[in-house]
């Protein structure tokens, strides 16, 4: 990003000059809202995926699939560890976990202890993490199971072995969603900047 927008304005009259500076910077034509969002992935971190599976083989496999698809990967071997990683295990509360940036959670369904379905429910109950898409993976094509997961808010249900095409599809749809959110935010900032500039012009500064 080539500009900085501050949305805080001091109402102190002595900061009039800073408002003038701000007006210069915020002149609409100076804002370079480019349509190039390829910098989104490079300036921000890559998509960060949390993968959960009790099988060593499958962990290795999904990790590779995700790396090949240019994602940052964290792999854990149980739902319990996933909750610990997210700070949802009740040990620490969620303090300090608001900054944890996870873009996607992919979990196996059948796991000893807590299942992927139960993990899905816990995530959807969390105020911090409920917006994160959760994908369930299973080796069994059981329709009632699939329905139950989708009803509970799963983003998708993938049959194992997971295909590279599945991962790419997920990543592309997530990137599009991030891109949309980014564009909306920039549009909003542009409107705000326009508004401020008009106000300043009217005040004949």
């Amino acid at each position, binding site marked *: 990003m080539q500009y900085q927008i501050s949305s805080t304005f001091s109402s102190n009259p002595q900061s009039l000059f800073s408002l003038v500076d701000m007006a210069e910077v915020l002149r609409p034509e100076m804002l370079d809202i480019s349509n190039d969002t390829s910098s989104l992935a490079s300036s921000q971190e890559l998509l960060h995926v949390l993968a959960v599976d009790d099988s060593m083989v499958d962990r290795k*496999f999904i990790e590779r699939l995700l790396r090949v698809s240019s994602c940052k990967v964290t792999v854990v071997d149980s739902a319990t560890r996933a909750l610990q990683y997210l700070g949802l295990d009740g040990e620490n509360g969620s303090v300090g976990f608001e900054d944890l940036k996870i873009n996607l959670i992919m979990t196996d369904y059948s796991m000893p202890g807590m299942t992927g379905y139960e993990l899905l429910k816990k995530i959807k109950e969390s105020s911090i993490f409920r917006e994160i898409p959760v994908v369930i993976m299973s080796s069994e094509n059981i329709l009632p199971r699939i329905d139950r997961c989708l009803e509970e808010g799963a983003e998708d249900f993938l049959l194992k072995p997971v295909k590279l095409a599945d991962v790419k599809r997920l990543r592309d749809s997530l990137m599009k969603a991030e891109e949309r959110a980014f564009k909306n935010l920039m549009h909003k900032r542009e409107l705000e900047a326009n508004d401020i500039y008009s106000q300043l012009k009217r005040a004949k500064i």
Partner: protein
Amino acid sequence: MDALISQLQRQFRDHTISLYQQGFLDDQFTELKKLQDDGSPDFVAEVLSLFFEDCVKLISNMARALDQTTGAVDFSTVGASVHQLKGSSSSVGAKRVKALCVSFKDFCEAQNFEGCVRCLQQVDIEYKTLKSKLQDLFNLEKQIIQAGGIVPQVDIN
């Protein structure tokens, strides 16, 4: 050196094709190979190594669960290990092992002791056979590279 490389490459190609034709490997193994590159040249070997470790562990669990001397056989415990083995074998493309797990699972559900014991013996033989054949394949790869050659891409179809 070129003659040696060609010969090794031919052996590699033939061995690979026979593994697919004889049903030891399926498409999923091909997918694994696609994920390997110069940055991760040992990926396939590493995954397969984890798979064989899994085989040892799970088969030992199954054997223990099928041991009648400790009391009644818990078929659901056996079934749980079979399910896991079926999953791993599916993930690496170990076609024969996976097929055996399917029958094995049926015998568990039917609580058929003899059927389970037979499957256990077969699965043990099968994974060891695959391991040995893949070792030959990996050795050929190593020899080709050491001789300065390139490991050929084998088109199964």
